[in-house]
């Protein structure tokens, strides 16, 4: 056919026919709902085509700007954590039988993938102390929103209470999710030691809510009193959602499920998924058995075939979007397959004692950093509560300035909190993991002390 592109076989005539059928005259009409000023006017400002050899040279030049491994001392946390990934993780992950980002759409033919997901679910249940885990979620923030929706399906009160110590980005995501669903979002405050206040939660619960969301350890690093919060939540007939974004802490902390949490949800990137700009990240969601038919996403179950042999299946998929359309439990119809596999291999590699050792190692180093910084004059620590591997230090001057100055010396000192809280200009969230040698921590303390 004349005028047809070799790789883009759509002809002008076909395009016109489709537009006509849809009731439009120009392709631009399809974007009419997007305000004019937000639309791209004219052509995209990109350089013209390059020969393959020139293109490769260009991309290699850009790639060379990356520093791998990054030689700088890093103390960044706040929802994304740098941990050592044992070589076996990547080695197994890259086997082609496993190398897929999704649960397959003809799932039962891929028994190995389903078994890996089943093991992920089992390990997450063991880690959180709960009965059920799904096959994973996209990332932490949206998982918390899904947990709130799930709690409201079990106890429909159309209201959730967020601890003001929840990651501010998670809180924003929750508000976005719930804005048009008719579930009200209210926050409750914290105590002087930096932890969520069970009394304020109880007061807020008096007017009725389906769930209470508390991050543990919280955004500022404090370990929460989960048992007390669970007691006040239970008394009011609501569900306690414990949001976590540093799963390594569970090697040291009590399983929230055993402390009375109804749902444990959040970010599992810390379980062996490397840091990279923009992800991918790994959401997880675990809950009590009562939530079984209210869980979002996929669930892999162990079953027996006609000959009595063990096999794995997708269970409860009748509630998913591809079958139940707009009445589905959630719009999630897949999982973070590859990242969930990463986490499974990582957890299996470390084992129970390895997870405990790693958690102790993280805490010991963070505690050492805190002790070193406490010895420096003029610094303050707003939250006296126990912490796991991160805490807030209040500097003498601007935290953002300090971060800039230390970056010049090869130290990424932490996350300035003014980014989220404009009135906390001097506060820096510092995270220390097993990746920070003692000498690095000493350098950080010395440089901050000298500011």
């Amino acid at each position: 056919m004349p005028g047809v592109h070799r790789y883009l076989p759509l002809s002008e005539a076909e395009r016109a026919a489709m537009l006509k059928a849809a009731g439009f005259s120009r392709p631009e009409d399809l974007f009419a709902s997007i305000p004019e000023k937000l639309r791209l006017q004219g052509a995209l400002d990109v350089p013209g085509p390059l020969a393959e050899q020139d293109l490769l040279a260009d991309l290699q030049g850009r790639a060379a700007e990356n520093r791998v491994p990054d030689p700088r001392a890093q103390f960044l946390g706040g929802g994304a954590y740098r941990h050592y990934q044992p070589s076996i993780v990547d080695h197994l992950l890259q086997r082609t039988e496993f190398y897929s980002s999704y649960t397959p759409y003809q799932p039962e033919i891929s028994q190995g993938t389903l078994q890996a997901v089943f093991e992920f679910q089992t390990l997450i249940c063991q880690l959180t102390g709960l009965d059920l885990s799904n096959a994973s979620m996209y990332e932490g923030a949206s998982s918390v929103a899904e947990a709130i929706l799930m709690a409201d399906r079990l106890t429909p009160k159309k209201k959730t209470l967020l601890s003001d110590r929840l990651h501010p980005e998670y809180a924003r995501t929750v508000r976005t999710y719930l804005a048009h669903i008719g579930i009200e979002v209210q926050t409750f405050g914290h105590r002087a030691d930096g932890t969520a206040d069970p009394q304020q939660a109880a007061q807020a619960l008096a007017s009725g809510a389906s769930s209470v969301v508390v991050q543990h350890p919280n955004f500022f690093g404090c370990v929460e009193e989960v048992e007390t919060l669970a007691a006040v939540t239970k008394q009011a007939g609501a569900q306690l959602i414990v949001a976590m974004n540093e799963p390594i802490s569970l090697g040291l902390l009590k399983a929230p499920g055993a402390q009375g949490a109804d749902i444990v949800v959040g970010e599992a990137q810390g379980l062996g998924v490397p840091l990279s700009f923009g992800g991918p990240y790994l959401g997880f969601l675990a809950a009590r058995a009562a939530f079984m038919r209210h869980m979002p996403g996929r669930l892999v179950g162990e079953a027996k075939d006609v000959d009595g042999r063990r096999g794995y299946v997708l269970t409860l998929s009748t509630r998913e979007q591809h079958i139940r359309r707009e009445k589905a439990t959630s719009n999630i119809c897949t999982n973070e397959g590859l990242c969930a596999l990463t986490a499974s291999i990582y957890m299996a590699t470390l084992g129970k004692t390895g997870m405990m050792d790693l958690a102790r190692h993280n805490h010991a180093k963070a505690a050492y950093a805190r002790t070193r910084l406490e010895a420096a004059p003029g610094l303050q620590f707003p939250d006296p509560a126990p912490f796991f591997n991160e805490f807030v230090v209040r500097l003498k001057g601007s935290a953002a300035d300090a971060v800039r100055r230390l970056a010049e010396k090869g130290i990424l000192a932490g996350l300035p909190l003014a980014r989220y809280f404009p009135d906390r200009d001097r506060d820096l969230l510092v995270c220390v993991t097993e990746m920070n040698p003692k000498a690095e921590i000493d350098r950080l303390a010395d440089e901050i002390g000298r500011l």
Partner: protein
Amino acid sequence: MSADGIYPDDLKYTKEHEWLEARSGRATVGVTHYAQAELGDIVYVELPQVGAAVVAGEAFGTVESVKAVSELFAPASGTVAEVNGALTDKPDVVNRDPYGDGWMIRITMADPKEVDGLMTAAQYRKYIEDEAN
């Protein structure tokens, strides 16, 4: 599937394949023989709590089979007076005995005249025959 199933004459029927038996202002509700046969093996029935309000034509619960999850629609408006809790552990009773032990909820009807708008057994039988064609 045709109308070969059993459709007792003393019941009323809806287009969504629920049956209703009205007795002195109270209505017992379940799904028809046709519905359970179309759904296949029923594995879970989700019902409202006693005291919940139901509205004629609106969903009051779900029924889940190995093939699909379907809404249950209330044939009449009112308040839930009783729920068949036995279905939690034995949902397959709906397949075996849809008009007896497979009943789902009892409604205290807001307006007993509402049932006059529902189909008789003969009308329902014709309705599913037409649907099948």
